[in-house]
């Protein structure tokens, strides 16, 4: 069966709501995983439900400029996260404290080999919590949801230039925190095997 594009599916779903289920099946895992990182596993399901409920309600607004509906959905997800911004920042700081004490939290511990992952997470959590929220949104859409700068611009309705400069600033900010507080952390890419 030929796969329909997201745009075709969503456009059909305006008249035939059941078609929207396929959009959910296509993208729910990506949206859920992004949200699980951002709001934690307790809220991820609710937040994902909220994203798709909103997307369904406003499905006639999807303009199909992008091939995939994922940037659009992650843009909605960003709005949902924004409503819980304080909760997210609290969570990041609480996470940093827990990581300091050595608790693994919900995030999976890799086999003990990860480059001093625990200390790194502490620093990163603090840095993320301290970032201006738009920069944090942009950076995490890049790092956690793997969107390109153009897709992020589309998702957040921002000019591409703004996204690029936000990305640059956010990375600099995080890198500076890493440099200041964890000089032993390696910043090179993982070696190729």
């Amino acid at each position: 069966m030929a796969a329909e594009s997201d745009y075709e599916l969503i456009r059909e779903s305006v008249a035939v709501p059941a078609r929207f289920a396929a959009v959910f099946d296509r993208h729910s895992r990506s949206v859920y995983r992004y949200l699980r990182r951002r709001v934690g596993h307790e809220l991820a399901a609710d937040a994902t439900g909220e994203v798709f409920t909103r997307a369904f309600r406003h499905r006639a607004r999807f303009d199909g400029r992008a091939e995939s509906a994922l940037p659009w959905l992650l843009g909605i997800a960003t709005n949902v996260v924004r409503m819980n911004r304080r909760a997210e920042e609290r969570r990041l700081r609480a996470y940093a404290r827990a990581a300091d004490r050595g608790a693994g939290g919900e995030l999976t511990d890799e086999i003990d080999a990860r480059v001093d992952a625990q200390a790194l997470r502490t620093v990163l959590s603090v840095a993320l919590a301290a970032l201006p929220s738009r920069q944090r949104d942009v950076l995490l859409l890049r790092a956690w949801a793997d969107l390109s700068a153009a897709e992020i611009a589309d998702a957040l309705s921002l000019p591409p230039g703004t996204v690029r400069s936000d990305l640059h600033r956010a990375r600099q900010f995080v890198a500076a925190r890493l440099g200041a507080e964890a000089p032993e952390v390696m910043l090179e890419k993982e070696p190729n095997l």
Partner: protein
Amino acid sequence: MTSVDHLLAASFRVPENDATENADLITVRAVINSAIESAPPRRRRHRGPRPPRAQSERHLRALRGGRIVSWLAVSAGVVVSVVVVIVALSVHHSVPARSAVGGAGAPTIGQVVPRVPKALSEVLAADGSVLGYIGLGATRTVLAQRAIPRLVREATVAAEDPVFWTGPAVTSDPERPTLTMRLVRELYLPSVSLAEGRKGMEARLARKLSALRSRTWILDQYLNDATYGSLDGKTMTGIEAASQMFFDEPVSRLDLAQVALLVGLPDAPALTDPLRAPAAALQRRDGVLSAMVATGSITAAAASSAERAGLHVHPDAAYPVSKDPAVVAYVAQQLRAQIPAGVIAAGGLTIRTTIEPRDQLEALASLRAHEGTARDPVAALASINPSNGHIVAIADNRPQAFNYATNAAREPGSAFTVFALMTVIHDQDGNPANTFYSSHFLAPGWWPAYPTYSVHTAEDSYQGDISITKATILSDNTVFAQLAQDLGMPKVTATAHAMGITSPLTNYPSEVLGAVAVSTLQMADAYATLASGGIHHPPTAISKVVFPDGSVVNLGDQPGTRVFSYGQVYAADKVLEGVITEGTGTAADYGCPAAGKTGTTSDFSDAYFDGYTSKLATAVWVGYPKETLSMADGFGGTLAAPIWHDYMEQAADGFCSDFTYPTAPWSGHAYHGAHTVRKP
């Protein structure tokens, strides 16, 4: 600077495809489905001209192939004539996004929404017997006000909200919501905004409803709309459906004990399910009876005589029950990946699966024989016919619809080393019997790029210089860690993917030792590539789907891809036979030629045995749902291999032949890498 992105991604990993994710997505999908189902046909308010209907149908047909769509058109005609109209609270459609934050986004009450009863789809085993049903709809029979017995009303009020008639519509006690609040929760809550907060929304709606409607209306609506339980994915909505389901009688003919049982269910339908949790159901029923005595609805004598009655539930045949909900859940999942959701939702399909009922029963029996009680770890089995990728059995020892064999992603331990074994054979033409490594504890620093990476064997015993064959038989991780470094992890990853591993892999060194999350089905699929003599077939549980108009889609004839030559596979067969005859997997030996590999994780949280004959490939996993719990004696060879043994002994069905000697034998040569040593 992109290393910041990389660090962020690597440092905040969340598990993928784990039980939480799968359960959450199932829940969310149900929420979205209900939002979709309750959406009225959209008024013409979208931008741009709507294409004429005929044109849009042609468009659909062109997109999806004629057969399915022609049937959709027919069913749309039928649907119109069987509309059941119910009153529900519904989302107001012109709410702008931002107003959801404040009160303006609250839903309006009293919108009439058509609800269409859906047809069931039948799931059949390979032999045509019924395995279960897929049906998204709820069973619901609406009772008119006068058809609701007085006893049912009194019992419900006593059990849920004793001051219902005189008290307020909203209470602040979260433990004891009023019936009005419960009704709001049943009808509206799934789509309530996260930011709005359920409690606030619930209270406001309950007040609105209470101002608009009489208490009698609210109570009757509750009795018709509350969820009394679910069986096999079908939700029993309303007390009449529950009465038919559990007693095969209309609610008007039930006695006091039966009424008290049903009335108690909506509070926690799954926990007090009379079929699955009879003791809890009984306790809940007696609680309802005492509450009725407390409100003066019945006498203490009537209550105590009702308490002496048993549950006497006997499901009505009209409400079909799946024999194996986990299999049906997986089949539904596979179906959704291949058939448009609208077609599945409309129902009426016949899905012929590849499940062999005898193998499935053997699988269940073997799992339960070894891990039979609720306190035991979960044990799951997946078994594949290597000649075509047909899944003949997928089972676990738990009653829930969650399919552990297909959906739980767990660490396979050294069962994963087979991919390094196949890489040295295939990519390097290296003969495992002539290639030697030094078995010893690999202290942190041995792999300079990963300074904390150390490797020991599960038993902490070391053999000195041994061949790869010997290392496989004894499951020596230290040898495979070195071999993987010599081969390069990307090569091992490529082999794993070619053989059937679909989980994402990152080329991280410990992946070769099984520090990855894979399903039991993936492992069975990978070993099936060896069982078939080197050809990988995508695994499938569905052989064909018959649509309501009689047209058929065949999903069972997936072409295979040759990954290894038969000669190469035969060399591996001989190595892996040693695991069963003299290695860590002797508990799997059922007296016939077979090959396999144990898998044990470093903290004993997961135990695997994966193996095959030339007719059947089977993987068994044992572990607690909580991934951090260790198991006593948690070796793959002690926990998983005996289950594999019991299953294969039966499922082999008399087949007991050696792997066929290849017409073009392969011998390879000694492989030389940075860590290899001379023959001792």
